[in-house]
């Protein structure tokens, strides 16, 4: 079983190995994008969720202080050479802040790498599906121009199947969460290795873990759900364990909201679009609050979670808008919740730790 104790090192190794095999690297901003398309062009998608705890002064010359730390850090990382290993930058349209970031990178920063964008539709089906399929096709055309390669439909299908296999393994990890011999930090290091590992490598690592699943629950403590964008600093996971809780399920943008079901269409672009659009409820995709509530409540029932920790990044409007209604609905259904607001560059503050401990005590 592979150990994912040093994500930064693992990430570097994955990039290095891919490059040694003649591949290229695409730095991808959050959240949703067609991994299979990038892989079909031999780009390894490596996601940029911040990264946390870096000096974000360079971005302050371009972004106001009321823009979230994900956007700030990503830009600072780019400006200080952090994205140098990348040959391409993909900026999916996730929210107003990442929209703006993508726009200023394209128009003003103009990095060495090509910058491509992807708009994720928020309209109803079938219009959204048709649009997204065409948007992915347009991305294909741009990659074709950029690389001079034209992956065939069969190549695309193969890449899609590889990603779908990895997504299935990811879902199984979640389903068997309780019986896996991994504490929360180890579990999330594994889950989040999907952000940089090739699908087949991730699948193999996941299968390794799944093969040693126990028959009875391996986790003790008060089960809770973790909701939000990204569990950074990762110390929060240890803090939850220390305070007597364990994360029975999550509604995190980088994790549980990306349990993509396989698409159904034989047409590759449509199939990729189906998979992205049919992922669990997500405020950045415009999911109705009721849908999010039902998803969370169902997860709480399935996992026995007694409460939800909304772990929110400051200034994240899509998340913040839903909270009052969502929390009220959960409360009415007997699921308590708390909100912890963080900035990617702050450590886990004592104030937040206390709040977390108090919440877990109240649940116990």
């Amino acid at each position, binding site marked *: 079983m592979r150990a994912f104790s040093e994500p930064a090192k693992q990430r570097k190794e994955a990039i290095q190995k891919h490059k040694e095999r003649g591949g290229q690297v695409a730095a991808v901003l959050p959240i949703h994008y067609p991994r299979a398309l990038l892989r079909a062009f031999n780009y390894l998608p490596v996601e940029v969720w911040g990264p946390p705890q870096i000096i974000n002064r360079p971005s302050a010359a371009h972004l106001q202080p009321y823009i979230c730390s994900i956007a700030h850090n990503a830009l600072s990382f780019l400006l200080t050479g952090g994205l140098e290993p990348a040959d391409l930058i993909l900026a999916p349209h996730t929210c107003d802040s990442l929209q703006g970031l993508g726009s200023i990178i394209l*128009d003003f920063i103009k990095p060495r790498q090509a910058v491509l964008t992807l708009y994720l539709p928020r309209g109803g089906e079938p219009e959204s599906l048709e649009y997204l399929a065409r948007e992915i096709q347009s991305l294909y055309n741009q990659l074709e121009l950029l690389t001079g390669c034209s992956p065939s439909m069969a190549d695309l299908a193969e890449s899609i199947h590889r990603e779908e296999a990895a997504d299935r393994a990811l879902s199984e990890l979640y389903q068997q969460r309780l019986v896996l011999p991994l504490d929360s930090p180890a579990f999330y290091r594994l889950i989040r290795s999907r952000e940089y590992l090739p699908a087949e490598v991730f699948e193999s690592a996941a299968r390794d873990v799944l093969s040693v699943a126990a028959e009875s629950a391996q986790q003790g403590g008060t089960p809770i759900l973790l909701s939000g964008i990204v569990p950074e600093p990762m110390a929060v996971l240890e803090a939850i364990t220390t305070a007597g809780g364990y994360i029975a399920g999550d509604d995190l943008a980088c994790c549980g909201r990306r349990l993509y079901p396989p698409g159904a269409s034989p047409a590759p672009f449509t199939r990729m679009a189906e998979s992205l659009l049919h992922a669990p409820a997500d405020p950045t995709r415009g999911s109705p609050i009721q849908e999010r509530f039902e998803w969370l409540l169902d997860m709480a029932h399935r996992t026995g979670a007694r409460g939800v920790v909304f772990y929110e990044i400051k200034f994240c409007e899509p998340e913040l808008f839903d909270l009052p209604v969502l929390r009220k609905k959960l409360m009415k259904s007997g699921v308590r919740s708390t909100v912890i607001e963080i900035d990617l560059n702050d450590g886990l503050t004592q104030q937040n730790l206390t709040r977390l401990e108090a919440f877990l005590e109240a649940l116990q």
Partner: protein
Amino acid sequence: MKDPSLARYHLSVGLGRAALRIRRWQAERKALSAKGWNSQALTPPLKISPYTKELVARHYLEGRYANQGRKVAWVTSGAPVEILKALDFYVLYPENHAAVCGAARLAEDLAVQAENAGYSRDICSYARTDLGALICGRTPVGSLPRPDLLFACTNICQTVLAWYRVLADHYQTPLIVIDTPFIYQQPGEHALGYVQQQCEAAIPLAEQVAGKKLDETRLRETIKHSRTASQLWMEILESARHHPAPISVFDQFIHMAPIVEMRGDPQTVDFYAAMLREVHERIDKGIGTVKREQKRLLWDNLPLWYRLRNLAEMLGERGVALIASSYTNAWGELAEMIDPHKPLESMARVYLHPILNQGAGHKLTTLQRMVTKYQLDGVLLHSDRSCKPYSIGQMDQRERLSKDFGIPALLLDADHNDPRAFSEEQIATRLGAFMEILGV
């Protein structure tokens, strides 16, 4: 009239309209004598002002009783409202209502109500103002009608999507979303098709709520009114090319209400035709908005609704006229794209292209173009804490304007509706230093 509630609606609205007309006449008489105007720096407001007040008050008066006689839709300011207008919906714009609260200095109190209910202070202050009004039931316009339909278009921000999801959940009302893909540099043809398809798909649901079929002739007529009103609005804005400029950005902010919330109505066309006549009159008489215009500036982003007069005075005292705005310009610059003969296709094109739905580079080009067109001496960029899509990019835009094009530009930190994010002293100091650079 058989339906008693409809009869009550018409009676209430009819009486209210008459009262508002009388109030307008009184205000017009007072304005003619220019009594009570005590500014040393600014010329008296446009004579059309009582007319604007009447139109806006009438709009909210109709809203007060709308649930008795009409179907009500709440819409975002950039939504293709012509569909709803042609279906006889009473249309309410929560953003405008929030601005009215802001100008009436009620926004802070209402925002606090929303914050007490759990809404973060980091979300848009328009949304907090309206959600606060919804929670406590207070509004300067009497009361707001309950929506039968919610209609949100993402061409101004993704915030509206989150906001309208909250409203949809609160009112258990159908929500139509017209999603307009953001144009980073060039729009794809598939984006246009996508918006048009959504407009087409919106019609049956809107018809179902309205209880009637959409009459295509009526839709064309409504679109024609939108186009004419937008053209007139643009002409009014362009009048500021004259020296001295006959209207200021503050006038534009005050008189833009009809183009936003009454777009598609014939009376909006009449109103802007009358306003244009007055503006021409001012030009003929050489009346400027500032008594001794020395420098001319552009305003980027939404206004400070709670400080319009103070800011106008502060600038006017130094002979600075704020005469062009990328924000008010947005309601007129797309007029020529509107084609009543291709209703849905042209609606899709127009509503896809607002400045807020286009990249930061496009906005820089627009600012530069406006500086040349209006012969401006500098740019004030309002870094609006509540409007991220408008504000991101301003730091680079300011840099480019100053360094690449030699146009002095200043970033002012504030918020369009929440005065708690506004520091009087800081703004005064920064503006003072900027005016020294301008030499006034």
